[in-house]
């Protein structure tokens, strides 16, 4: 799936994560800024990478500002950002969501 334009989801509130997805041309580039980088940085990157792979997104710039979000929150915000960035807001990917 292609990123069509820059899109944002999430807030900077505590326990949330804010994603900004934009077009990229050199694979998945993740720029993560997290309060819990030391303890959960790897885990957060894994959640992001796995979910992008499930959506078949191969080229994207991911900017993530994390305020201690749980995995479920990270997934929900990233799905919202992906649907907005790929103009598929009204076509949820049931295979991934299931």
């Amino acid at each position, binding site marked *: 799936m292609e990123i069509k334009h820059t899109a944002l989801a999430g807030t900077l509130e*505590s*326990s949330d994560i804010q994603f900004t997805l934009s077009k990229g041309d050199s694979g998945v580039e993740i720029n993560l800024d997290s*309060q*819990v980088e*030391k*303890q*959960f*940085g*790897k*885990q957060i990157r894994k959640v992001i990478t796995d979910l992008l792979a499930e959506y078949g997104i191969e080229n994207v710039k991911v900017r993530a500002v994390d*305020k*201690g*979000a*749980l*995995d479920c929150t990270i997934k929900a915000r990233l799905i919202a950002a992906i649907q907005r960035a790929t103009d598929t807001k009204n076509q949820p990917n049931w295979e991934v969501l299931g």
Partner: protein
Amino acid sequence: MLNKVNREIPDDILKDKNYKPFETTEIGNPETTYVAHQVKVSQGDDKLVDSIPDVIAKTGLKNGMTISFHHHFREGDFVFNMVMQEIINEGFQDLTLAPSSLTNVMNDMVIKAIKAGTITHITSSGMRGSLGDFISHGGLKDPVVLRSHGNRARSIENGDIKIDVAFLGVPNADAVGNANAIYGDAVFGSMGYSLMDAKYANKVVLLTDTIMPYPNTPASIKQTEVDYVVKVAKVGDPDKIGSGSTRFTKDPKELKIAQTVNQVITHSQYFKDGFSFQTGSGGAALAVSRYLRKSMIEKNIKASFALGGITKPTVDLLEEGLVNKILDVQDFDKGAAASMASNENQQEIDSSWYADPNNKGAAVNQLDVCILSALEIDTKFNVNVMTGSDGVLRGAIGGHQDAANAKLTIISAPLVRGRIATVVPDVTTVVTPGDSIDVLVTEVGIAINPKRKDLIEALKNVPGVPVYTIEELQKRAEAIVGKPEKLQFTDRPVALIEYRDGSLIDTVYQVKD
């Protein structure tokens, strides 16, 4: 070697600094000798000094000496920065800084003094913010020594801390050195921690913005203890000394925890007429006093005393007749500080009276119920109030180790904070040993220290208070946040955590970035 809470204490630290590893929370009845301080005899007529540079010269401050300050002005302190800047300017080197604690407003000046070589050793109750970060990244060669308030009193008495010059800010003083903290612009109520410095330092300097006519009473610090009095423009910012009015939390999680803490207290054998308690200043702790008040009225139970750092809600209980006396070592808000002037039953106590393990009986030994907070608590009930989840110094021991000797010590803490678990398999830093903790209260339920069979029995059927093992609570927290990666440290110690008896309970290492 491994100490009794299973922490590896480096042998060279034990040897070089003449430390014993932590053994037990039992203090017993050892014999000890207090050290005396030097007295330069004065007739009292020439104590008033015009400026900080003049008074530094008069005290005979020299390289290598120990200087002290108190932290009663909290974030409104002007005195520390004024004096320290002058000491740096004059080029002093290799001083030991031994304040009762360090607040954020002092951080930049401490870092500056370390970089200038003015300060090379520190002992404190704790440190936070930029200073904690600086020290945790190896900013000071010699490890910082962290002591509880009771332990600081013990160390001053037995000479582990030998203060050469104490610089003590006070809201008022007369020209001969009688001072209190209940009148003036920058009142902070109890002078508890600074009274030790006044009694034991070789040279005692008072700094004040308000000179009173002689004799200035009530005198918490007395003229017999004071060498010099300096008039400065302002000792502190009254708005930043304590929070203005105490607002009760509206956070449902904190309210649930507070309600459960109250259930634990009222269903324990200690909740009877004449009981005593110490709360703290956190959101949940403040809310406890509201629930406790209601239960005391319903059951017609009155407390003999409330202890510790005092807040307005505790003063309200005193004025309502639900608490007979307050033993007050420190005031956390304006209401508590102001009421010290009008309530004769709000007794100022020094930190030895409050919590010293090596005197003839401290107030904490008489305490029934104590509510404390935690950054982390582990499955052995060991508590960390010193290092954050990233391993960086960001707290203070305060009276935690001391007050934990209450007959019923309750830790109130949420199961998780954001993505960080509070209940963990092993705390990053052991500050208070699990042996002195009795009950953990979280928003989902409580865990009772298995050695307290009496409490397990008393609390097993309290409506709305599910009892778990602490391992169950730890697993529940991990199920929510996941398993964190282990923090990485270098092998260089940056701070030594003493237990209240002066033994070593844990070591904090430089963080790896």
